[in-house]
């Protein structure tokens, strides 16, 4: 093999780190966006995000003041935007967990430059998602604690048969583990920031959160173990959280909900949408934050491949739903899948979903398309839209026409519904922009470690070759 810095030999894989770097240059390049002041662009984006967040505050206040009637929900469509957004955001979080935990366990080296980013996204997405289970209840002031198994003087426990109770545990566990995992990974980088910053206040704050990290061998040893353990804990969560979310639907009797394929199909959909969301943000971020040397085309291409795979899993899910509906001969199921979804009043949402989730990812069979930045960015956004439509189909389209035609009703959202959705995007964006401003977007330590590993690997390879 030749020198580390290769020209692009078509037989060689794309590099994980481009250019020649030392620890110092990596530190400088990856911490610089945190250390330098906020730019004009950041402020503009932050302003937009804040105004959307303002909309969220208004929408939440109005919902609490008026009641769920402020939303477009009705009978039979008892759930709509609230649950759609909940499932959508939870799903988005899954990419982060998958990247940090599963790819770590599988020792996929390419995860290092994007894991921090994706984990942050998980955290923020889960925060957005967590708004809804509470908000969508009629009496959130009771829902806030009655869902917990606490020793109530009324001696009433939550109903453990209800998937909503399972949700509480699944999602709160998910949030806790994700937070710990993300924070633990940050600790060495926070220490690096503490050392690099010139502002006294920042040094104090970063120092506080670095929790006395000195980078001793013992620290590293403990850190590695803890990280691995958390990765091990997170791994089942990737599968369990969305499985349990899917139980909200799968355990019911409603045609379009009552489906055994939901758990795997939801997990695949979650990863699918999660990666799409990571791509949506990563592509501009690597450009504007100067991270192109660590988030390379190889990363992007790998993520596109995952989207192709999960997209096809989701497509298989759609196919199976239709097949089982037909195969069971259940007239309600057949009505739901062959009539309501394709030809009912909400057919356009369904058809958009089919296009975005099944047709669009097929582009990634082509190497040219899957390595084209504009193509993948547009595709990622379309997949985000498609996955939102999928949840709309599952939640609203299934409910609005179930068994007895007498109770069928159409559904339309109100301004509050739309504001809540846009508002959570604002909340997500605000948190994300703050993250980019105050925390290294890439796991610096891990990249440095990777550089060492790669250098050593190359050195060994070179020796053998010689």
């Amino acid at each position, binding site marked *: 093999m030749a020198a580390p810095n290769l020209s692009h030999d078509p037989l060689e894989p794309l590099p994980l780190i481009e250019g020649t770097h030392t620890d110092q240059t990596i530190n400088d390049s990856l911490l610089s966006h945190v250390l330098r002041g906020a730019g004009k662009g950041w402020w503009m984006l932050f302003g937009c995000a804040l105004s959307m967040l303002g909309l969220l505050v208004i929408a939440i206040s109005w919902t609490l003041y*008026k*009641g*769920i*009637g402020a939303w*477009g*929900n*009705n*009978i*039979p*469509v*008892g*759930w709509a935007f609230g649950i759609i957004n909940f499932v959508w955001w939870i799903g988005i979080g899954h990419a982060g967990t998958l990247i940090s935990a599963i790819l770590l366990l599988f020792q996929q080296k390419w995860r290092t430059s994007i894991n921090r980013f994706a984990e942050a996204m998980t955290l923020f997405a889960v925060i957005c998602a967590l708004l809804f289970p509470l908000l*969508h*209840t*009629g*009496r*959130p002031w*009771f*829902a806030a604690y*009655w*869902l917990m198994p606490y020793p109530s003087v009324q001696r*009433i*426990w*939550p*109903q453990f*048969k*209800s*998937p*909503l*109770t399972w949700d*509480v545990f699944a999602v709160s566990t998910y949030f806790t583990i994700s937070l710990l995992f993300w924070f633990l990974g940050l600790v060495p980088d926070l220490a690096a920031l503490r050392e690099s910053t010139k502002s006294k206040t920042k040094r104090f704050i970063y120092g506080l959160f670095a929790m006395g990290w000195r980078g001793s061998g013992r620290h590293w040893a403990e850190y590695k173990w803890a990280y691995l353990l958390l990765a091990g804990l997170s791994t089942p969560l990737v599968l369990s959280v969305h499985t349990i979310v899917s139980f*909200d639907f799968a*355990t*019911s*009797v*409603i045609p379009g909900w009552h489906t055994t394929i939901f758990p795997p199909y939801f997990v695949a959909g979650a990863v699918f949408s999660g990666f799409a969301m990571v791509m949506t943000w990563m592509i501009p971020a690597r450009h504007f934050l100067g991270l192109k040397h660590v988030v390379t085309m190889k990363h992007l291409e790998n993520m596109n491949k995952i989207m192709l795979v999960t997209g096809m899993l989701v497509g298989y899910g759609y196919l199976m739903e239709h097949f089982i509906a037909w195969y069971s001969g259940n*007239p*309600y199921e*057949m*009505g739901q899948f062959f*009539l*309501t979804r394709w*030809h*009912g009043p909400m057919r356009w949402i369904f058809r958009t979903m089919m296009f975005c989730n099944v047709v669009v990812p097929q582009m990634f069979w082509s190497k040219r398309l899957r390595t084209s930045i504009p193509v993948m960015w547009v595709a990622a956004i379309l997949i985000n839209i498609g996955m939102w439509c999928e949840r709309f189909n599952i939640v609203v389209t299934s*409910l609005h*026409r*179930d*068994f*007895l*035609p*007498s*109770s*069928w*009703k*159409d*559904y339309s959202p109100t301004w509050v519904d739309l504001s809540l959705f846009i508002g959570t995007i604002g909340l997500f964006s605000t948190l994300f922009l703050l993250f980019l401003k105050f925390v290294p977007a890439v796991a610096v330590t891990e990249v440095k470690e990777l550089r060492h590993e790669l250098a050593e690997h190359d050195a060994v390879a070179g020796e053998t070759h010689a």
Partner: protein
Amino acid sequence: MSCDDNHEARANDRARRSLPMVGAQNGGAAGAETGLPSRPLWRSIEERSLLGAVPGAANEFPGGASEMDGVSRRGFMQLLGVSTAIATVGAACRKPNEKIIPFVRRPEEITPGNALHFATAYALEGYTSGLLVESHEGRPTKIEGNPAHPETIGATTVTEQALILGLYDDDRAKQLRRGGDAIGWQTFLGDVKARGAKLTERGGAGLRFLTGPTTSPLLADLRRRILERFPQAKFVSYAAVAGDGAVEGSKMAFGRPLVPRHHLAPAAVILSLDADFLADGPEQTRLSREFSARREPSRDMNRLYVVEPALTVTGGMADHRLRLRGSEVGALLGSLCAMLSGRGLSALGPVGSLGHGQGSWDPKWLVALCGDLERNRGRSLVIAGRRQPPVVHALAAALNVALGNLGSTVEYGLPITTDATTGTAALGALAEDIAAGSVDTLVVTGENPVYAAPVDYKLAQLLKRVPNVIYHGLYEDETAAICNYFVPAAHVLESWGDGRATDGIVSIAQPLIAPLWGGHTEAEVLAAFVGDGDLGTHELLRRYWRGMSKLPGNLVGSFDNVWERWLADGIVPDTGAGAEAGVTINGQALAQAAAPLLARSGSGMEIAFATDPKVFDGRFANNAWLQELAHPITKLTWDNALLLSDATAKGLDLETGDIVEVTYRDRTLEAPAMIVPGHVDDAITLPLGYGRTATGHVGRGVGFNANALRTSEAPWFDRGAAISKTGKRFKFAITQDHWTMSPDGRESPPPAVSAPLAEVLNAGSMFHEELEERRGPQAVIHQPVDYSGQAYKWGMSVDLNKCTGCSACVVACQSENNIASVGKDGVGRGREMQWIRIDRYFSGPVDEPEMINQPLGCVHCETAPCEYVCPVNATVHSDEGLNEMIYNRCIGTRYCSNNCPYKVRRFNFLDYTGDISAARELGMNPEVTVRSRGVMEKCTYCVQRIERARIATRIEGRTIADGELQTACQQGCPTQAIVFGSLNDPNSKVSQLHADTRRYDLLHELGTRPRTAYLARVRNPNPELAKVD
């Protein structure tokens, strides 16, 4: 009493706090009169200058006045508003001054619970129906039918159920006024006395009374006394929806005014000629009961033929329905007579030789009907509807007599109403008198004539020419706006009164509560003209009936005892009017009168007016329960619509929701169109009762006013309407959008099952095979819970064969269970709250649909999908199998509703009960929790009634007997389609119905094990006409 003191103290406190505000509004005028501080209070300089800038502040509210101790009208309203609760929560302490008598339970087993029940009477169109009103601590809360009354037989109509809401309607008129000034009753009496004195000088010339139809002996007596004092005075009785055809028709047929009384028990074949007898008219409750009793599938089952232009409740129950324009019904009837005569029905005489009429019906239909009538002589019945002209009634009467139905299915008696006719003729004469300037004083006690009178009388303009108009009404309505004196009426539940049912039986109406806002009765207003205005209705009534009771052979014992028994029973015995004997047809005269009927053939679009099954003629427009009730046919709420057929709409390029302009006799009206299955082509139907411009906030501006096109010459039908599309659209609030059971072509089992009689009687038919699959045990993994050890296993059965879709159950449930109304926007969004709904499905072609109704509340599944999904255990199963809803545990995830396959759960999306008036609160059933925002609710099988019965029977050391306990929907149902009871008792009615061969479970295939079972509908088609199914 301490509670009195408390209330008074609070009321005074309120008053003290309210007064300054009141003073500020009214300037100094009020104070000057009464000695209260006359200087207005103000909070800022701006406010102060504003006070000065409005010199006529009192005129800003024309109804305002200052007699009430320095309180303006508005302030008075406020005071009343806030202190209503105080004034009437203490109604236990404040019964009517006079003695009222609780209903003695008879028969014993039908009145459960501890609340007191009082019998009273209510007259919608003059004829009374007997009510039994439940009263909690002096507050009437629920209306049932009086089982002892011959017309109500324990059930109720939709409008009777809704009377409770009308009683507590905060929008009711509260102030007696002269012009814009509030006056007291004594002042009013003084004015009447003065006016009366003047009028007597000319023998009462110029004095006119405009009343509604009435059967009240007391009012008739007062009329007699008034006419004695004012011999030149005249009484005019007018009803917007009067059906004078019957009386006028009997004049034609029999040569004297008689009214028919129908009996369906002996009727094997019924022909309805535009008569919605199951949901309209004073006989509807009894006829519904009698009709449904003969719908049991057997060879004895009755057969109903209906001829009508627009689908009605009765038309929906028809075995054979012929859509025919209203103006062609007569021609059809003429042809029928001719055909029957041709087949040997010689009794028709000259009427039979009229010849055939022209019309668009299938001759085969007529031949089949003819055969059926002929075969069932003496057991058939021809009923003509209120909209039909006299000649149709005359021919119907002739047919009934010729078919030998007299004395069996129909009898004719003298009119019971004080005025035999209440149509436009007399009102027209009054209008002429007014126009001629010969009316000086007009006393209006009829229902809102300015709104309801034919448009060509221009009553609104005419009334302004009458120097003195005294109007007695429940609301500040269209008529109140142009009268000199307005007397707020007492609600029927606040009034003493009397009246007679269609068979003449007298009922005494007793008040359940003292008038909430000081209303007065019609009797008091009339009595004022004979100097008895301050006696009070109770005294007037007792004096009258004491006099009556002296009739020989009538009564035994002292009057007080007798009186108390009358009140307790709700009827006065031996007051029935018998049938007239010697009724013979004047064939020659009738044939002459009927001849033009056959020749007449109008052209152009037919315009037809119809009474509304909800707001009737508009008098219930401010009743939110009725406005929000889904129309039995169109499922429309909070509006009326111009109804037309699919073919007519296609011809005019119209869709449901298009606003059209109707031009008729040079008048125009804009109305939203709605396509309704089964409507006759080239015709439109305009429901009356909407488009009110002056009533309470509920009814104002709801729908369009069809009276704007209604003339005295053609109050019901006419040809020559023109329709043009305006291009504007209207959004209806409809509870059930889809017409059929499989709107998108899916092949699920029909929710509502219907089969022809032959199949039902054949034990081996497909019908029974299919139903067998829709009931009984299923393969399950878990053993279902065994309820056989429980004392009761509650269950319900709903017989689709009996349900007419009248919707009395829906309002009964709403009243019993404190169910909120959500308004048009709420219904439009799909958030109606009624716990029971009537699913209405059509099948067959859109022009000739078969209609089937399916009442559906919570079916109390034994394996309920709602229960396991609730995360907080807010909906759980009781030992006796009730699916219970624990409101205070509910956090409102709505998961239960999502997972309910029947979608019978209702959610409080908004705060529907927080801002109800203090008055309305009084009408709430204290035994049912009022639900708050964010909480799910649904049918409980009236668990409060179960518990009430349980307490009562436990005290007596026995179990609840079958039939002792009725749910509200069951009790209200005129046809007894709903039966409730314990399935653990093999002899209970509900157990037997669950074992019926027509029984099936809705969505049985889901394995929910519902406790409510349905019994399939049976059609009884004439084999000659039976369609190939």
